[in-house]
């Protein structure tokens, strides 16, 4: 999943980005590679806070992925978390958890996929930071992440969560906890030297605490990060200093 990093499945991938280097392209590429690599009917669930389905459809269409067809075939599920979580159901109130109904919905989707013998589902939460900014408590959000992670482990699904780093170098409590849960951490940053026409940013890949050593995944620290350039429909990756027009 997600060339050129070739990440395995059944992991929890934490994607962090900053304001000058948004990770939208990484989320889209993960989704596109999951759809194209797994031709079976594994469910893909996108939990979106700020982006609409229309935007996802138009971006994925550039990679020849027809989301409408996927939705009709019930292999793609788009859930607007904000509207769902802000309306507290009776079940939510009983459990004292604003995300209980959401959790139940995702659980039924994944179990249905397992029943149909289509393992390897994908759950994308985009993004956890906006939920915090809206007003949900850090403890509720951490429990949501733990619950999603446990659900994905039980159903052999891959979990991807995006988190925005507001102040580079400063670690907020949400990041600390997400980091302790993750298998891998995709660290997307702008260039230290500022904006460039040829290079949009750099990506480093770190092993999280839950990654077993000696795995086949090649990690990259920031000093050896891959650089990327965004094009109309995709992103191009290259080693430092090897881009066209870069010395």
């Amino acid at each position, binding site marked *: 999943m997600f060339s050129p990093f070739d990440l395995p499945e059944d992991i929890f991938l934490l994607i962090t980005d900053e304001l000058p280097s948004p990770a939208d392209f990484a989320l889209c590429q993960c989704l596109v590679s999951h759809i194209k690599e797994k031709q079976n009917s594994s469910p893909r669930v996108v939990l979106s806070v700020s982006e609409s389905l229309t935007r996802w459809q138009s971006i994925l269409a550039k990679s020849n992925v027809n989301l409408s067809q996927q939705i009709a075939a019930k292999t793609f599920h788009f859930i607007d978390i904000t509207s769902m979580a802000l309306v507290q159901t009776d079940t939510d109130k009983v*459990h*004292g*958890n604003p*995300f*209980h109904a959401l*959790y139940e919905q995702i659980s039924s989707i994944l179990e249905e996929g397992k029943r149909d013998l289509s393992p390897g589902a994908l759950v994308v939460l985009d993004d956890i930071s906006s939920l915090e900014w809206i007003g949900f408590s850090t*403890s*509720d959000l*951490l*429990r949501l992440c*733990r*619950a999603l*992670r*446990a*659900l994905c*482990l*039980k159903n052999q699904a891959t979990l991807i969560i995006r988190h925005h780093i507001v102040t*580079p*170098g400063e*670690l907020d409590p949400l*990041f*600390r906890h997400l*980091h*302790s*849960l993750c*298998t891998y*951490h995709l*660290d997307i940053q702008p260039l*230290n030297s500022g904006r460039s026409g040829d290079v949009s940013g750099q990506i*480093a890949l*770190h*092993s999280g*605490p*839950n*990654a*077993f*050593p*000696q795995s086949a995944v090649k*990690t990259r*620290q*920031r*000093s050896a990060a891959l650089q990327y350039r965004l094009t109309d429909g995709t992103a191009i990756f290259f080693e430092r200093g090897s881009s066209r027009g870069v010395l």
Partner: protein
Amino acid sequence: MSLLLSYLDSPRPNQNFVLLQSSVSQSSLPLLRHFIAHNESVEKHLFCFLHPSSSLVKNTQSNVQIHEYLDHIPGYKDSWLDPCLEVSKIIENVPSSHPIEVILDSVDTLLTDNGSISDTYKFLRSLMTLITARSKQSKLILHLTTPNKLLPLLLSTAFSPTLIQCIAHPPVLFTHLATEYMTPPPPLTPDAKFWGIFIPISERGRDTEALVFGQEGEGSGGQEEMVVEVLVRGGSDASGRRKAVERFLESWDIENSLPLDLSKMKSLASIWRRKIVAEEAAPDPTQNVSFNLHLTPSQQESRARVPLPYAHEGLPPAQPAPGAILYDPDSADDIDDDDPDEDLDI
């Protein structure tokens, strides 16, 4: 031979409590994996509250009983109950005839879920009591991530008089100390000086986080190697004599799950590289020439008798009067001793 492993392997009496401390800068889970895999003759009970067992145990081990509580989350499990009671019951039901190791993968999660420091401490204390009541080789191994409000309580002698505390540090902290504070790790620096500088910086945490996650940082701690600070309380030496608190550093090869000598760490190679300053003698230009530059004794004597064309002839010059200007006029000078301003009428 690793000191840490020697403390774990040697059956020192009453060394029942091991505390593994991680931070966001460096996880000590590689050590926890080693402790789980090590010593397959001892029955182990692994309780997973945060980390899946698949990330802690690579191969199925018959001596390790895994109890997973990953989905045991308040608000997500119908009629959630604090798992502490269940854990205590499981340990109580294990026959006391043989030693066991009880491993809790995340004390923080227990604390977060039940929300009470005192309740969590009471549970852990009761577990410790169960362990100490059993065979002397039984152990309680706890893993937590700092900052953690339970840590000072767990470190106190009231919780356990004996302790082996392992704190994971990223290698970048030591390269920073060596370059910015001119204090490489022992034995390059005397112990007292090193610990005096190292302990306050490492305990602050934020400094290490800035080194790892700051602008110049790599974004993660050591991926292949890490340094473990080990504190042993209540240990004893080979003769059985009790020792005071002992503190030392060990390095750990994460990929191969083995201890490593600090000087063999690749990430600290720049500290240990010795700069050999060879004091070579200045090259002699009179060597290897095609003509003879040496003087015979008679030639040296003749040379010494040659008067040198120096004014002082090697003698120190006579000290002139301070501030005096000595001038010898020549024929072109018009020296007039009269006062040139004599005819002025101001």
